[in-house]
């Protein structure tokens, strides 16, 4: 009987304890981030959409081998290779000479891709393409705030994106998709 009564008291006391916890937290500082006015600080390690890594000259490091497109689980990458440039008359002559000698002509085609179409709507950000790139030409952006009005806004040409980025150094990354889209 006494034990029961004590139990009842301790049960009721547990309600008081709960109120104490909420009271303490009521006075504790808030932990949320007021998003539009302040951005979260941990964005550095976040994987946003893909981007091409530029080499020293600003041209993409990519060698258009297509390993990424092959590896991609969701087929969201298309690499458009460059066509060989139209040879000048001298080069054509040299080519003919080389052929006559039986040498294999050296491929003068620039290795960087003409277009690197990337469909972000399909991408699951797994990183398989990056891991299978032989030259490390792909990387994730930290862009977490990507937004668009239509599906086409997320079809990027990464080559164009890289050019724009080089031109617009320091501009917000979120501006990039629109420019990329207009070129795609």
């Amino acid at each position, binding site marked *: 009987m006494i034990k029961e009564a004590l139990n009842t008291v301790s*049960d*009721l006391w*547990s*309600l008081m*304890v*709960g109120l*104490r*916890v*909420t009271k303490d*937290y009521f006075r504790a500082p808030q*932990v949320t981030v007021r998003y539009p006015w302040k951005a979260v600080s*941990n964005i550095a*390690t*976040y*994987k946003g959409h893909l981007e091409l890594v530029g080499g020293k000259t600003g041209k993409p490091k990519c060698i258009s081998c297509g390993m990424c497109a*092959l*590896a*991609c*689980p*969701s087929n969201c990458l298309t690499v458009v290779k460059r066509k060989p440039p139209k040879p000048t008359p001298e080069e054509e002559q040299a080519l003919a000479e080389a052929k006559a000698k039986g040498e294999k002509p050296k491929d003068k085609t620039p290795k960087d891709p003409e277009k690197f179409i990337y469909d972000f709507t399909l991408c*699951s*950000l*797994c*990183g*398989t393409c990056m*891991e*299978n790139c032989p030259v490390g030409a792909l990387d*994730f952006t930290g862009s977490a705030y990507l937004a668009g009005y239509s599906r086409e806004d997320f079809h990027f040409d990464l080559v164009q994106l890289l050019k724009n980025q080089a031109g617009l150094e320091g501009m917000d990354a979120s501006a990039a998709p629109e420019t990329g889209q207009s070129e795609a």
Partner: protein
Amino acid sequence: MTTYQNNDHLAGDFYTQNFAKTAGEGNLILNLGPQHPSTHGVLRVVVELDGEYIMRAEPVLGYLHRMHEKMAEVKTAAQFIPNMGRVDYGHALGWNWAFVGAAELVGGIEVPERAEYIRVITCELNRIASHLLWWGAYLLDLGAFTPIMYAFDDREKILDILQDPTGSRLTYSYYRIGGVAKDLSADCIRRIQEFIPWFRSRLPMYKDLVSDNIILRKRIEDIGVIEQEVCRRFGATGPVARGSGIKYDVRRAQPYSVYPKLDFEIPTSNLKCARGRYDVRMAEMEQSLRIIEQALEMMPEGEVLVKGAPKPSWKVPKGEGYFAVEGARGKIGAYVVSDGGKNIYRTKLRAPGYCNLSLFAEVSQGTILADAVAILGSLDLIIPEIDR
């Protein structure tokens, strides 16, 4: 009154009609879900109610079915890994591990030791995050709004930590066949070390605010009693089985990775009710902290991905393999049958929530509606995992 009776043409779809065929006279057929606050997504349970008492219940699945097993047939093994993060958003790394482990089993691939430790650390962190998600959502089911905010506060810290190596916050695809994708950075390890004591200091608050609360205790004690025999017949594992007093944990029963080297306990409870499952999960979070602590100490330097790790075009050699890991909800299994072709011939994913939910119909019988919600929540359901 008359309008009420003339609505027979609205009387539900295939499942409702099929269910209503055997309904008792004058009983109410109620569809809980697919849109319902306490079914955590798109689970639907058709219940037959007599007053508030549940005569019969039948879960209806498939609203989130994505046929991952078919997708596995059209992708190579390495390409299928991103799918695993999408199967279960709560404990994505457990699923990563199950599939990768099965592929390694059939392919006979050794994993570097550092990678094993990283897997243990990240998987256990993910388990805590999953339990916190459950804890918050369960109390939301029981009508307490505040705990989920506190739980998400803590979970946020784990997500921040896991974001470092994985790059994402929910649907991780971090493990690779033969290791992990990226090493833990020094900053990440420091943050994990800071997180452990901090989270330990939070656990008493959870106890004060919720676990000891008389209203909560009355809500979950003696509710949804699951006998051990029921666990066997339905294949319930994880906290559901442990809450019924079955000391079964895949990490100990069929040890994988470096778990045998780590010292931790398997919390069980003999209460068999929702309270037992609640206690087991709360205790498991502490054990996970212990595991992480030890793993951080024992973690050797070295590679995180085995040399010559499989490329995406890697073909799984002929054979079959079943690899199970202990997920937050129970035994996650991946059964792989390969004919040596480009894609895996057949991949079967064993979802623990699927088996745990299947016993709901039996356990909920005769309870009242509010209890059914409490039982449903105590099974810790993640619908994408159940529907796959």
